């Protein structure tokens, strides 16, 4: 028996390792991806004043701090029993969509993109954004600038772009001045132009070349979880959760009731938990007969929504659905779905900036401590993000429960890696390009292992287990 290791998994947020075990014939016996990081946020947030949490939980993730910031601020609204003024909500929504734009650009062009732009078989030394910048200087400069625009815009709205401070219990800490809006508008126009370019570039030059890979790598069948408005429109800041089965039937629930619908399974071999749909029976990650598995992130949101709120994104959604059906199950289509969401967010930012209410003067209401429970939820780029807090009468935190985007995808990532490895490695033959294609199945999910392992800090490492047909562990390989 031979063991193959990919260590570290690169161009993802966090550290991971994949180990693949081959049987005597050189075929994949079984793989088991095991993330072994844990962090302590749920513990060390206890005792802190509730209003400080939006400034602490941001450090769960430096890539998507805005979404943790906003989920935390929303949980605070619920705890203090207040509804922010419309301008406060719109400013939060604006920042969320600006952050989304940078996040999408980061993933598509800096993390996953080099596989497609340079090719999955390209030498590792150039299969990265620096390689893109050197071989296509014009695209490189465009991409670096476009991603940075989001940071500049968030600096204008909020001072601190990473680990932000302006979403507060009861609203937003300051109004947007007319002068700042004028500064933002041309930048927002530029982001929208870039989003159009990215979509057209990917549809013309990228996706057609990789249809075979899209149809073969990481294919699994699961349900999907996302957020929609009352009329089924894709929504990121506030709405209700929609949980869709593989047959496209779905149920909807309020965020505050999440614990009735989502369970978290613990395996003795992993610090990272495995969320599952409680109503769909016990969890099974068997490739041939999966059970209670759902996915989150862009593809899930694109699948569960009936429509999108902005014209360009809606047109792309229709084209996507005509081509790939609903729900689309092909894992690499996450990359496609992300670009549709980039377009939506770029359009939404402009829509908000052109809304007269965005420069309203009333952005927050004062709050008074009390004993309460509050659930705050947003769609983070990597999935439905749930912050659930309880406080005592002084407004100090007594309990915290967090379920973050990447954690929802723990089981699906495991399954997609296994499927990819089984498809690509035959008779003991593999090379660097094949191993990179297995990594592509992970990158499609854009996993953020910093987020997913917020429980207790430790190394982000991965363990694989080899099991026989009865599920007995026959070998274990880890990176420590």
């Amino acid at each position, binding site marked *: 028996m031979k063991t*193959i*290791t990919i*260590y*570290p998994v*690169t161009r993802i947020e966090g*550290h991971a390792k994949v180990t693949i075990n081959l049987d005597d014939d050189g075929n994949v016996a079984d793989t088991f991806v095991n993330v*072994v990081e*844990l*962090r*302590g946020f*749920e*513990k*060390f947030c*206890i*005792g802190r*004043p509730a209003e400080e949490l939006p400034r*602490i939980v941001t*450090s769960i993730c*430096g*890539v998507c701090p805005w979404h943790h910031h906003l989920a935390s601020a929303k949980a605070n609204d619920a705890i203090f029993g207040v509804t922010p003024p419309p301008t406060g909500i719109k400013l939060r929504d604006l920042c969320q969509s600006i952050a989304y734009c940078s996040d999408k650009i*980061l993933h598509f062009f800096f993390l996953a993109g080099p596989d497609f732009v340079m090719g999955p078989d390209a030498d590792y*030394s150039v299969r*990265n954004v*620096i390689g893109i910048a050197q071989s296509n200087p014009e695209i490189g400069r465009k991409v670096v600038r476009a*991603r*940075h625009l989001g940071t*500049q815009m968030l600096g204008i709205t*909020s*001072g*601190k772009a*990473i*680990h932000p401070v*302006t979403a507060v219990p009861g609203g937003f*800490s300051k*109004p947007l*001045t007319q002068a700042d809006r004028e500064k933002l508008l041309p930048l927002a126009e530029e982001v929208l132009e870039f989003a159009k370019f990215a979509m057209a570039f990917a549809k013309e030059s990228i996706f057609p070349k990789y249809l075979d890979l899209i149809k073969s790598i990481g294919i699994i069948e699961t349900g999907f979880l996302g957020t929609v408005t009352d009329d089924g429109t894709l929504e990121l800041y506030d709405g209700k959760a929609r949980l869709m089965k593989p047959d496209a039937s779905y149920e909807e629930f309020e965020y505050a009731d*999440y614990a009735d619908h989502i*369970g978290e*399974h*613990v395996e*003795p*071999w992993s*610090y990272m*938990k495995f*969320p599952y749909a409680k109503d769909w029976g016990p969890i099974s990650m068997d490739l041939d007969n999966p059970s209670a598995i759902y996915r989150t992130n862009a593809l899930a949101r694109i699948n569960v929504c009936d429509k999108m709120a902005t014209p360009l994104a809606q047109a792309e959604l229709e084209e996507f659905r005509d081509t790939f059906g609903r729900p689309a199950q092909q894992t690499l289509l996450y990359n496609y779905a992300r670009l549709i969401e980039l377009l939506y967010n770029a359009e939404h930012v402009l829509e908000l900036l052109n809304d007269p209410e965005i420069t309203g003067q009333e952005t927050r209401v004062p*709050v008074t401590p009390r004993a309460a429970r509050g659930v705050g939820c947003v769609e983070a780029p990597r999935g439905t993000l749930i912050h659930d807090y309880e406080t005592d009468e002084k407004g*100090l935190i007594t*309990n915290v*429960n967090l379920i973050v985007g990447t954690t929802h995808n723990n089981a699906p990532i495991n399954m997609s890696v296994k499927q990819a490895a089984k498809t690509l490695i035959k008779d003991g033959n593999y090379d*660097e390009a094949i191993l*990179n294609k297995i990594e592509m199945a992970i990158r499609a999910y854009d996993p953020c292992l*910093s987020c997913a392992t917020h*429980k207790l*800090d*430790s*190394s982000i*490492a991965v363990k694989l287990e080899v099991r026989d047909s009865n599920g007995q562990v026959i070998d*274990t390989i880890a*990176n*420590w």
Partner: protein
Amino acid sequence: MAVKVAEEWLNICGGCEVTILDIGEPLLDLLPELNFVHMPVLMDHKYNGQTGDKEGMEIPEADVGIISGGVRTEKEKKVAEEMRNKCKTLVALGSCACYGGIPAMANMYTVEALCDKVYRDSKTTEPADTPSENLPPLLDRVYAVDEIVKVDVYIPGCPTNPDLIVKALTALLEGKEFKLEERSVCDECPLKREKKAAGGDIKRTLDSVDFDQSKPWDNTRCFMEQGYLCLGPVTLAGCGNKEGNGDGVTVPRCIKGMMPCRGCFGPIRKGANPLVDMMTAISSIGLDAKQVPDRRALLNRYIGGQKRLRPLPARPR
């Protein structure tokens, strides 16, 4: 010849890596002078050879090594040591690497207490034993990088300011030393100070500070003097950028967001004790330092490594 750079992230959120990208277009101009030989977030260099066939972890030799994140596990300790061995100059990037950062708030609890919360006292989780099969050994607490290996250059901040990364890299390229000036956030804050508080109790950020965006910054009173705890007096300056096109005043980031500082750049000088210094600063303007809620965690939020935060003995019941 281009300078070889290796970058590693340990106990991280990734914000410092995003900050490197936030250098923006000037980064492209720096690129010809930098040769990145290892950087897991952006590059596919592997520890054990590209098909995983080599024994032992190997990071290529580099002129400059950059580490973000503190050290929590034996594995991260090994990575820090390998980086030190292979890099001529080692840079600690961000407050986690420099002081432990927010994750070092976990140093207030034992590892056992953290696991009890996560696996046996969580709303949605099926209660279970702490996973223990072949898991990597945790260190007893979160360590700053310089508690494990020697660090040559410190670039603090949560995250740091991209301008400081450029300044540090430029200095290194020119063979010069890089060190931040020992100034406080207050030293570069444009708000109006009258050296005494407006009166009343210390306030939590449950309501807005008073401010007027239509007038220049010095028309707004210092947040601390308004009664809102602000860590500016004991925090190293460097987060702020000039407003407008670089010709305006420098405003610390959180102040620009109309929120008080929480100390993310860490102490002004090595060996300072921000908790004690802050108590003095509060008292000196006539506020009652005893009123600060959750004092220990608040004043050590970003600096819990280097033994500043540790578990307290259980209170007798």
